[in-house]
C-alpha cells in the first residue's frame, strides 16, 4: 500500500520555500504547519485543502471516497467559476457505510468510478482519499490504476486524508497528485513563444477573467491555469509552457519548483491584487518570456499596456480618494493577501490599522514592514473577543476578512468586506482593484450604520436621538 507520509515529508522539505531554509534539520522535519491545538483549532483539513486546489478543474469528476460528512456537508460551496463545463460543481461521493468499513471500500470505490464514467464520461476522474478509508487501508492508488486501465481514461488518486494536516498541506498534496499523474502526460497541439502557466489561481468569482483580457491583449496565451477554469487536457499539457507565474504565496510552490526542475520552466512569484502588483506581474511574465526567447518587443508592448491601464485605473480611483482618506482598515486574512492588499489600499489613502500575519512567511512580514513602516500593527492571532472589542471601540472603520469572522464585525455593527474564498466579488487586476475600493466605499458609506447604532427608544441616550430626529 502506498504511504502518504513519505510524500508529506518531501512536501515539508520544500527547498523553494525561503522560510524553510532558515530552519534546523529537526525543525524542518516537523513541517511548516503548527501543531493543532485540540479545542482551540480553526480551519480546514488536508482533504479540504486538496479539494480547494483541484476542484476548479472544471471538466473532471471530483469523487470523494469517504463517509457522507466529507462531501455531503461541504459540496457546492466554493465560488470558482467556469467558462464552460459545469461537471466540477456536481458532488460525487462513495458515501461509505459500516459494510465498507468491515469489508473494505475498494470495490465500492471502483464501482463508483465505473458509474461516473458510464453516466458522465468526463475526460478524467479525480479520487480524493479521506480519513476513514485511509484508516481501514483502502488503497486508492491501486483502485485508480485498475480503473484507469479498465475504462481507458485517467483516474487520478489524490492522497490527502484530512487528518494528515492542515488545508495548506492539502494544497501541496494536491499539487503532488498533479505532478505525479497529470502534468506532462499529453502534448499540446501547438506551442507559441508566449505560452505561460499561472499556478495557484483558482478563478474565484471569476478573478482570472479580470487578468486574462490583459494577457490576451499582449498575445500571451495561458497554456494552463492551475487550477482556475482549467480543463484536464490543459493541465496535462502544461509542461510545455515557456514560463510560469506563481500566485498566492506558498500554497502551490511545489508545483512551480518541480516544473522548473523537470521541464525547465522558470517561474516568479507575483500577485494580481493591487495596481502596482498587477503591473509587476505583467512585467514579470513578459521578462521571463523574453528570457525564454520571445521577441524583445513584448517588453515594450507590456510597458505601453501597463501605462494605459494604470492611468485608467487611477483615473477611476480618483473620485474615491477624498471619500476614503484616513479611513482605517483592519485586515484579517492569511498569507500573501496581507501585503499585496496593504499596498493596494494605501494607494487610495486608506490607513491600515492592523493586519494578521498568521499564515504569512518571514518574507511576507518583512514586506509588510517595508510597506507599513515599523509601527505596523501585526498580530499572529486575534481571538474573536479581542477583535470584537477592537471593532466595538471603533479602532478601525472597516474589517476585511473571511467568512469566519464576518459576524464578529457585523455584531459589533462595523462594516465588513469578504476577501476570502467564499466572496462574491472579484478583486483581481486593475478592474478588481477599482471594484474592491468601490465595495469598501459602498460599505463604509452605507446609510445603515448610523441607523443600526442608534439606541432603541427604551435605552439610555435614546431620548436625545429621538429629539434630534424630531428637530430635523
Amino acid at each position, binding site marked *: 500500500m502506498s504511504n502518504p*507520509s513519505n510524500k508529506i515529508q518531501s512536501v515539508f522539505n520544500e527547498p523553494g520555500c525561503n522560510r524553510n531554509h532558515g530552519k534546523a534539520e529537526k525543525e524542518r522535519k516537523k513541517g511548516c504547519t503548527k501543531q*493543532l*491545538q*485540540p*479545542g*482551540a*483549532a*480553526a480551519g*480546514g*483539513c488536508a*482533504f*479540504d485543502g486538496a479539494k480547494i486546489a483541484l476542484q476548479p478543474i472544471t471538466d473532471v469528476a471530483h469523487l470523494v471516497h*469517504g*463517509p*457522507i*460528512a*466529507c462531501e*455531503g*456537508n*461541504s*459540496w*457546492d*460551496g466554493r465560488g470558482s467559476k467556469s467558462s464552460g463545463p*459545469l461537471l466540477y*460543481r*456536481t*458532488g*460525487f*461521493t*462513495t*458515501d*461509505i457505510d*459500516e459494510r465498507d*468499513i468491515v469489508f473494505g471500500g475498494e470495490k465500492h*470505490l471502483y464501482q*463508483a*468510478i*465505473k458509474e*461516473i464514467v458510464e453516466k458522465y464520461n468526463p475526460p478524467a476522474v479525480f479520487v480524493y482519499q479521506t*480519513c*476513514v478509508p485511509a*484508516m*481501514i487501508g483502502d488503497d486508492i492508488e491501486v483502485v485508480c490504476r485498475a480503473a484507469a486501465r479498465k475504462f481507458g481514461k485517467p483516474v487520478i488518486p489524490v492522497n490527502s*486524508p*484530512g*487528518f*494528515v*494536516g492542515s488545508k495548506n498541506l492539502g494544497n501541496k498534496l494536491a499539487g503532488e497528485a498533479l505532478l505525479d499523474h497529470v502534468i506532462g502526460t499529453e502534448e499540446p497541439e501547438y506551442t507559441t513563444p508566449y505560452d505561460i502557466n499561472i499556478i495557484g489561481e483558482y478563478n474565484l468569482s471569476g478573478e482570472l477573467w479580470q487578468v486574462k483580457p490583459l494577457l490576451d491583449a499582449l498575445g500571451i496565451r495561458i497554456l494552463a491555469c492551475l487550477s482556475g477554469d482549467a480543463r484536464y487536457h490543459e493541465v496535462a499539457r502544461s509542461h510545455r509552457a515557456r514560463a510560469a507565474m506563481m500566485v498566492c504565496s506558498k500554497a502551490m510552490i511545489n508545483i512551480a519548483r518541480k516544473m522548473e526542475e523537470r521541464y525547465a520552466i522558470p517561474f516568479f512569484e507575483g500577485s494580481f491584487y493591487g495596481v502596482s502588483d498587477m503591473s509587476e506581474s505583467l512585467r514579470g511574465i513578459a521578462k521571463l518570456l523574453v528570457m525564454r526567447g520571445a521577441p524583445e518587443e513584448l517588453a515594450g508592448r507590456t510597458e505601453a499596456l501597463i501605462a494605459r491601464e494604470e492611468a485608467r485605473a487611477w483615473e477611476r480611483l480618483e473620485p474615491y480618494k477624498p471619500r476614503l482618506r484616513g479611513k482605517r482598515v483592519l485586515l484579517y486574512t492569511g498569507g500573501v493577501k496581507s501585503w499585496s492588499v496593504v499596498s493596494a489600499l494605501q494607494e487610495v489613502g486608506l490607513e491600515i490599522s492592523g493586519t494578521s500575519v498568521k499564515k504569512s512567511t518571514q518574507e511576507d512580514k518583512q514586506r509588510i514592514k517595508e510597506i507599513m513602516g515599523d509601527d505596523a500593527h501585526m498580530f499572529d492571532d486575534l481571538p*474573536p*473577543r479581542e477583535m*470584537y472589542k477592537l471593532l466595538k471601540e471603533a479602532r478601525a472603520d472597516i474589517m476585511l476578512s473571511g*467568512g*469566519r469572522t*464576518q*459576524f*464578529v464585525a457585523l*455584531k*459589533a*455593527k462595523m462594516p465588513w468586506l469578504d476577501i476570502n474564498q*467564499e466572496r462574491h466579488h472579484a478583486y483581481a487586476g486593475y478592474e478588481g482593484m477599482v471594484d474592491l475600493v468601490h465595495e469598501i466605499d459602498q460599505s463604509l458609506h452605507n446609510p445603515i450604520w448610523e441607523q443600526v447604532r442608534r439606541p432603541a427608544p427604551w435605552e439610555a441616550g435614546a431620548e436625545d436621538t429621538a429629539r434630534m430626529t424630531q428637530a430635523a
Partner: protein
Amino acid sequence: MAKVLTAKKACTVNPLKMSQPIGGALAFLGIQGSMPLLHGSQGCTSFGLVLFVRHFREAIPMQTTAMSEVATVLGGMENVEKAVVNIANRARPEIIGICSTGVTETKGDDVEGFLKLIRARHPELNHIALVYVSTPDFQGAFQDGWAKAVDRMVEALVEPPSVGAQRTRRINVLPGCHLTPGDLEELRDIMENFGLEPLFLPDLSGSLDGHIPEEFTPTTLGGTSLAGIRGMGSALGTIAIGEQMRGAAISLENRTGVPYALFDRLTGLAPNDELMAHLSRVSGMPVPSKYRRQRSQLVDAMLDGHFYFGGKKIAIGAEPDLLWSVASCLTEMGSHVTAAVTTTASPVLERVPAAEVLIGDLEDLESRAADADLLVTNSHGRQAAERLDIPFYRLGLPTFDRLGAAHLVTVGYRGTRNLIFDIGNLFLGDTHEPSPDTWRHVEPAPDQLVQLSGGV
C-alpha cells in the same frame, strides 16, 4: 402508502444527506452557554461550521479535538482531554456537547470512558456539563444525529422530579431539527397565549435567531438553560414535534413520568386543529380568539390558493420529518408528490403521500422530477432546478443562497398560510401564456398551412 426504497448506486451524486455529527452539534447549539465539540479531524468541524454559518448567517461556536493521523491510531483520550480543558479555559462554557465522527468511531474510541477519567483528573471542571453522543458519519443522517443528541441530553441532564415540584403551567417542547428558529418562536407565542410556559429543548430560537448581543461570547448566547433542562421533570406535559423526537420524548417520560404527545407535523389545517385542541385541553383554556381568526385566514388561503395547486406535480427532497410535513400539506392542497427523496430511514416514510419514497440523492430527485411543476429541497437543488427549468422552493438546511432561512415559518395556521402563499405565488409566476397553437391537435388544411406559416 408509499413504497420505501434505497438507492442501489455505488456513487452518491449531489448529496442530499448530511452527516450525523453536525446534526448532533446543531442540537447542542440550541443550549445556552454551549460549545459543541466534534471528536474527529479538524475538517469535520470546519465543514459543519461553514455550513451553519452560510445557513444561519451567524457566528457558530463549534470546536474540534483536532485528531491527527497518529492520535487517531493511538486513541483520542489525550485530544479529548486537551480539548475539554482548552475550551473550559478559553470559552468558559456551561456545557460541552461532544459528538463522535467517522474517524474516531472507526478506531473505536471509548469516549464515555475518557470522560470518566477526565472527570477524575479535573475536579475544577465539575461545574461544566459534559454530554457525549455517538454519531458516526457512516450511519444515519443529520436528523438522526439531532435526535440522538437530544435523547442523550435528556438522559444525562434531566433530574428526577422532586415530590410536589410540579409546575402547573410548564410544558416541555421537543422540536425536530426540521423546525426553524422562526417556527419555535411561533410555537412559543401560541403556547403562551394559552397561558402555558413552554420550555424548548433544544431552543434555536434563543441562540440562532439572529439577535445582536451586547457583548461578544465565544459560546452560544441564548438557548435552553441547563437549569431549565434539569427541571423538565416538573412540567405538566411534553409536546414532541416530528417522529424523530419520539425517542427523546419516551426517555423523558420514563425518567420523570411527564406524559408526552407527539405531533408528527404542524403544517396544514388538521394537525394545527389537533394542536389547538391539545393545548386547550392541557391548559384548561378555550382557544384564544386570535387563533380562531388565524384558522379562518388559513381556510381562506386554501380556498384562494387551491386553483393553483390542484393537479400540480411536485418533487421533494428533504429529511423524513420535513418531507412528511410538506408532502402532506401540498397533497392536501390538491397537488401530487410525484418524486420524493429522503436521507435516512423513518417510520413516517411509508405514510408519505407518494407512490415511492427513495432514500437517495439529488441526482435521483432530478431524474424523477423531469415532468414536475415544482422542485422543493434545500439550496443544493439550485443546479437541478436550473437544468429542469422549473420553479424552485428552497426548504430545509442548508439554505445558503437566500436571506432569512432562520425566520421561515411553516408551522401553525399562520405558517401554513404563508407556505401556501409562497408556493402558490411560484405557480402563479410560472403560468404559460396560451398561443393559437396551444390546443391544436389536428393538422390544418394545406391552403391554411400556407396562411399560418406567414403566407409565403
